[in-house]
């Protein structure tokens, strides 16, 4: 009886403990030099070069509305989609399972409310982070008489056929955030992107840390294009700076796991001289791991989440926060309405991607907003601010 129980326990343990599928080239191995491992298969040199160039490009569009701005616009004709309003706009959402998406979706809902004279109905379907559900969701939405379809894909490759099917159905499709491997949507909206994000953080960390120091890289999960590109750009920067990357670990975006991982590395190496991460959700947990171990917090990057900005200011950290702005959730609504008006839109629609630095930190800190709010929401002029986001 006990033995049977143990076997059952084991099989349960296999599926319930959510461990990463082994860290890629975890500790510094001699073969790969700086310990960053092989380059990601998502890395495309031309895209990387283009994104780094965009970091310095001047956007067109209203300066006070970055969500309407475009970097290097290439306009496409949308006259064939012109239609009389008010419209029914449908949105297939990958998930709402993290604060970034929560803030973004609230911003999108507020944008819909701000445009309510032109939108008669807004249909939102949450795929709960499951590819299969999102494929079914998109298929369902095609039969619901939507005037335009917005898709935020869960994963790149798997959702491509579903988006292609939607394009074939004849309605204008707008894709944003994560991309798909097809050119069929009217426009693909996203900020400069992962290479820019990863590069800004890695360059800062390698410049600010002591020469020859040890860097710990924290990644959320493998296989998602926006995250793979962040890491691959960081890898290029670290390799170039000849930094010793002692570990590349997956955190699942979970603070408890992150704190444990960082603590393990502090114990193992005595100290860590720089921390890079592909997303800021776990930045505060990483800071706390150093504080609780009684070690100085090394140069690091986070993101524009308020808890990190606050601890950065309070503890006078050496930090930088590249952003993946949540204001991009406003843009698909604006784009869909312009397309239904027959106005030209840019494809791709590259949004500017501001960086929070020591110099502009104060302007992004808002003590009245919750700790998991994102400063770059571009939502202060929207209906229901600030209550909607609390």
């Amino acid at each position, binding site marked *: 009886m*006990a033995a049977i129980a143990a076997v059952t326990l084991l099989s349960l343990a*296999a599926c319930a403990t959510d461990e990463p599928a082994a860290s890629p080239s975890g500790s510094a191995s001699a073969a790969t030099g700086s310990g960053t491992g092989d380059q990601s298969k998502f890395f495309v040199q031309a895209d990387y070069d283009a994104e780094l160039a965009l970091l310095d490009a001047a956007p067109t569009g209203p300066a006070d509305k970055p969500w309407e701005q475009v970097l290097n616009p290439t306009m496409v004709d949308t006259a064939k989609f012109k239609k009389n309003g008010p419209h029914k706009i449908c949105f297939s959402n990958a998930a709402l399972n993290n604060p970034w998406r929560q803030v973004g979706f609230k911003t999108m809902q507020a944008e819909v409310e701000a445009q309510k004279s032109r939108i008669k109905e807004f249909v939102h379907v949450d795929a709960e982070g499951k590819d299969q559900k999102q494929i079914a969701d998109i298929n369902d939405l095609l039969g619901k008489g939507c005037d335009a379809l917005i898709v935020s894909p869960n994963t790149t490759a798997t959702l491509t056929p579903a988006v292609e099917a939607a394009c074939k159905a004849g309605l204008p499709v707008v894709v944003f955030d994560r991309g798909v491997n097809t050119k069929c949507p009217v426009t693909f909206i996203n900020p400069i992107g992962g290479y820019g994000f990863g590069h800004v953080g890695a360059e800062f960390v390698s410049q600010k840390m002591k020469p020859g120091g040890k860097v710990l890289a924290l990644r959320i999960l493998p296989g998602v294009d926006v995250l793979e590109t962040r890491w691959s750009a960081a890898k290029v920067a670290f390799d170039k700076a000849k930094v010793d990357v002692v570990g590349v670990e997956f955190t699942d975006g979970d603070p408890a796991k992150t704190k444990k991982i960082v603590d393990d590395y502090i114990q193992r190496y005595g100290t860590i001289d720089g921390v890079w991460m592909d997303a800021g959700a776990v930045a505060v*947990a990483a800071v706390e791991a150093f504080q609780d171990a009684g070690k100085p917090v090394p140069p690091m990057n986070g993101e524009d989440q308020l808890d990190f900005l606050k601890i950065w200011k309070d503890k006078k950290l050496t930090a930088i926060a590249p952003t993946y702005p949540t204001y991009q959730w406003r843009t698909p609504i604006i784009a869909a309405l312009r397309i239904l008006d027959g106005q030209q839109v840019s494809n791709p629609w590259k949004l500017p991607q501001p960086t929070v630095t020591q110099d502009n930190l104060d302007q992004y800190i808002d003590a009245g907003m919750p700790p998991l709010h994102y400063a770059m929401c571009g939502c202060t002029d929207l209906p229901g601010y600030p209550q909607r986001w609390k």
Partner: protein
Amino acid sequence: MQTVQPRSLPLRLPRVRPGGVLPILAILAVLLVLVGIRQPDFLAPQSLMSFLGRSAPIILLAAGQYFVIVSGEFDLSVGSLVTAQVVVAARLIDSDPARTWPVVLLLLAFGVLVGLVNGLITTRLRVPSFITTLGMFLILVGAVYLWSDGAPKGGLSEEFRRFGRRAFEDVPLLGRVPYALLVLVVLAVAAVLLMRSDFGRTLVAVGDNPRTAELSGVRVWRTRTFAFILSGLAAAVAAILLGGYSGVSFQAGAGLEFGAITAVVLGGVALGGGRGAVVGAMLGALTLELLFALMNFYGVSGALRSTVQGAIILLAVAVSATRSSSR
């Protein structure tokens, strides 16, 4: 038939209990030596204290799990209960220090309630505890997801977090003594005293042979239900400490039920009940954590932890099965 009055048990117990704490103490000593060779700094008071503080939640969970296992049942729900508690605490406290204590009390009550439900379903409805608590595990996971839309909301106050994060500073000789360690010591002593009381003996007797216990006048269902309540309560305290340590997290309790069960088995407690000491279970948890620390020092991937846990469960159960059949 011999009547098993609680008073006659002490004479009997030491003989039927090969699951003493000596083996686990030996393993612990070996691991300490290995750690001392690889990373001597680790044994300095400062880092040892912080290690004990960090290990407090899993040690408490092992103690809670011990009560259930020694009475002949299982509790698979503790991990998800911890997660649920942390998420609920964050949402209810919402960074407001004034709500700290009411929420702490609420969490303890919630732990008791979940334990009570587990216990009553297992004992009164006669659902095997494996299934009961697995069901509870799934219910809690689903409920948390539904209630929070899949992303944690709110925040824990510093007042709440200090239990798991802060320490008495500048203690002579020891340096920094984490609050979590004190909580652990107090509750560990309480657990030992409880096991020495009539209740403790009854609990072991129920696990050893429920039929005999029943015939000798013990209300088995009540004793077992109480064991589940203790496990729920331990999970609540662990949640308070873990939430304090790492903040709001959707994975605060992920996999803890297996950690606790592994620790209990490693501590010489027989699955199926009736044998083993609560001290053994807690030392088992400490040993397991020390083993993970050692693996970390040798640069072994964290992904191997569940494999190691699995191997320990199998090995420990196999060893104890051979022992009890040769008894």
